[in-house]
């Protein structure tokens, strides 16, 4: 268990660095992919929910600190894990095709980004009033595309 936790934390740290140093700057028309979201989906596929909640709390809080969002990622990612864990863990047992994987990630991403943008607007961190649809749909699609690429790279 400790080895698993250590491994997951190392992976989480790597994803955090990639998000901060790379993906945060790979924006397309202002849209960004959230690979911490993808990391948590992967955690949900293989780890129990309580464990996933703990990892989500650590990574989301770290991301909040590094991106100066303070609580927004923690709130939305906690809801992501608690809400999508069963769905993700059940679908992980099936051998999904690329299209199905994309649809699964996209559907979860749409729900996640809806909460994320709402809580961002509540916190006054992002001015999402005018570009809500763009960020909501655009970020979801962008993140789903990156997720499919990760899926292709990691699956045998």
């Amino acid at each position: 268990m400790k080895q698993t936790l250590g491994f997951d934390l190392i992976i989480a740290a790597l994803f955090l660095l990639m998000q901060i140093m790379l993906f945060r700057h790979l924006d397309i028309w202002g849209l960004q992919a959230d690979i911490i979201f993808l990391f948590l989906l992967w955690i949900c596929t293989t780890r129990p929910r309580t464990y996933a909640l703990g990892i989500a709390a650590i990574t989301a809080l770290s991301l909040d600190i590094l991106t100066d969002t303070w609580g927004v990622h923690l709130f939305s990612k906690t809801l992501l894990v608690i809400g999508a864990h069963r769905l993700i863990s059940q679908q992980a047992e099936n051998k999904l095709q690329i299209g199905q994987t994309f649809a699964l990630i996209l559907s979860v991403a749409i729900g996640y980004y809806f909460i994320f943008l709402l809580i961002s607007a509540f916190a006054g961190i992002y001015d999402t009033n005018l570009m809500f649809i763009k960020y909501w749909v655009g970020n979801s699609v962008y993140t789903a595309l990156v997720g499919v690429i990760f899926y292709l790279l990691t699956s045998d």
Partner: protein
Amino acid sequence: MRIVFTKIGDIRDQVITVVLLIVALMLMVARQDEAFQNVRKASLTFVSYVEAPLSNIRVYRSALRTNAQLEQNTILLQDEISRLRSLRDENDELRALLSLEQTSTYEMLPVRIVTKNLTGINNNLIINAGSDQGVEVGMPVVNHEGLVGSVIIPSANNAQVLPLYNRQFRASITIEGSRAYGIISWESVNLTELLVNFVPQTIPVHPGMRVQTSGLSNQLPANIAVGEVVRVSPEPGRETQRIYVQPFVNFASLSEAHVLLYQAEEEILQLENQWLEAFQ
């Protein structure tokens, strides 16, 4: 594919979730507090250290994009420069011709330099127009750059011209930007400079000032460009200064010119004659 929505069944997970959400909300609210600012500053400092190594990559990335834009701009500018150079040359020629026409109220006779002797002290030019074409003694010879000299000996179809680079050449000039008058001549030291004398030292003269005919001598009309001041030095033992002028006209390439069909004012000539008779 059967979609199964997650149900919150585990009390432990519910409690953890509620705690985390409360913490998140507290963070959101507290982030603006004064006490929280130091923590935010520390996190921003950490992020800046983390991102510092990548800043060069971002600069390189933007530099590549900027470089591509600059290359495109360079191509466009080179094309524009070529066109502008062509237009500038054409404009210079037209301006030179237009300026000459505007500043001159006299008829001009185009002539060709038949002989050019600029090797010795007695430098002279011979043009292919003479008295049959209306050329008379004293008429100025100019081109688009400025004064070339004045006619000294006209024959029927040719005339000898006293160029600026001749020790016998004298002309009354004025220095642009001041009301200083002087006499310009050639010292026969070189073929690049003329000398202006009789300008008081109280008159400030600087390199770059233009020199043009004054019209006071009644031999040459006023406002014909002569040259540009290159250096100035005080005249030893006098209250005047020595002003060295580089002529605008390039005598080395001079091949064509115009004779201004200018004639001195008859009244002034009569007054000069009367003055001479009165003191003889």
